């Protein structure tokens, strides 16, 4: 009886460890996203995990962008989930940049944004067609102007 309890406790501990290993997937995505961003300097990453939904659920973040700096926003999807992430950048309520252009139906792994106004901007992430997904968005610095 004592031994069975011990086995159960060890198995529970192992399950806990596998949870840690799963969490590292997001860090791996950050690394991949860093490669997508090429030689731009890493500034911040955003981890996105959303369930399926109609309308597609959103995950929002606020960022400060500074005047006369060219930024790169890159995105990277987990292969384990079907959702393809879309990043949208808003200045107040104005959509100023996105990784998915509806008119052409084209997805971009990264977009460059030349900022001319220092202030708070809003990043919104969602998965295409409201599918569930796991992704990472990366903000990096390309150059100062």
């Amino acid at each position: 009886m004592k031994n069975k309890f011990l086995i159960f406790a060890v198995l529970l501990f192992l399950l806990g460890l596998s949870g840690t290993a799963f969490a590292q997937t997001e860090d791996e995505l950050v690394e991949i996203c860093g490669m997508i961003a090429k030689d731009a300097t890493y500034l911040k990453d955003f981890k996105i995990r959303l369930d399926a939904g109609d309308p597609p659920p959103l995950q929002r973040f606020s960022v400060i962008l500074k005047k006369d700096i060219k930024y790169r926003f890159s995105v990277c999807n987990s292969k384990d989930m079907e959702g393809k992430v879309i990043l949208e950048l808003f200045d107040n309520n104005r959509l100023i940049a996105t990784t998915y252009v509806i008119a052409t139906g084209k997805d971009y792994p990264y977009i460059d944004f030349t900022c001319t106004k220092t202030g708070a901007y809003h990043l919104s992430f969602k998965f295409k067609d409201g599918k569930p997904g796991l992704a990472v968005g990366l903000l990096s610095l390309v150059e100062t102007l």
Partner: protein
Amino acid sequence: MTRRFIFFVVVILLFSSCNSCRNSNKDVSDAFEIPDSLKEDNPVPISAAVIDDMVQNIASPIETAAVLKGLKVPFNKDLIANTDFAENFNTNFAKALGLGIYGCDLGYLNMYGKTSLVIDYISTIRSLADGIQVGQFFDFSTLKRLATNNENIDSLVLISQQSMSRIDTYLRENNRSNLSMVIVAGVWIEGLYISSVVTQESNHKRMRDIVGEQKEIINLLMPLLNHYKKDPNMAKLIKSFEEIKKLYSDVKISYEIGEATTLEVNGELQIKQNDVQTIEMSDETLQKIIDKVKEIRIKLLKG
């Protein structure tokens, strides 16, 4: 039979731990620390909505340092805080503040590739991070190796940034946003100090604008700090920052809204914002801001 099974499971467990350690570059002993929430002296709770609304990168050491480097402003060791001041940081609040200040300095050193000075700063940062139980997120060993061997500067910048970012995320997610905000305040004041001194010495228009545009940043920072004003240390910091904010009331920022232009170049999407931001600041106001920032920064360093 049961003993064999337990032995087998323990062996697997050991291998799993080693894998986890190799992948994350973290000390395995750190993974089993007592949750910080149990150690912390009365963390101030904050609602999830407020956390969601918090600006993610309110103060970033990299952008200012990149601008300085881009303008070919020579490296100046005297701009950064001497690590001897670290012994003044004895409370959790002070350690978090120091973490922000030295984190900003590390960004400056990294951007200029001053690896010989980096080790002193990463040692100080690790000690302060350990002091508030977030040392496990600061990848000291990798940073030390990169700096010692004068290896890839890009990796040094990346890992430093990621370490600071992980500390920030961990604190926010573990009901310790108060310390996260103190770190942000530390990064911000040090960044403003560096920009101010360079502006004073060079009177470069771009640097002047960087000091002036901090009006936008302090207007975002103050409401976030004010969430924790019940903490006497925070109240003191807010009072100091209010003095800077007051001086910024004489800085005028105006905008002209323009339509962003989008271009696809070699399959890459490039968007250029066409808003115009104009910053008006008199020499007198600039000087007052510089003097105030210097005064507050040295006061903070002296503890």
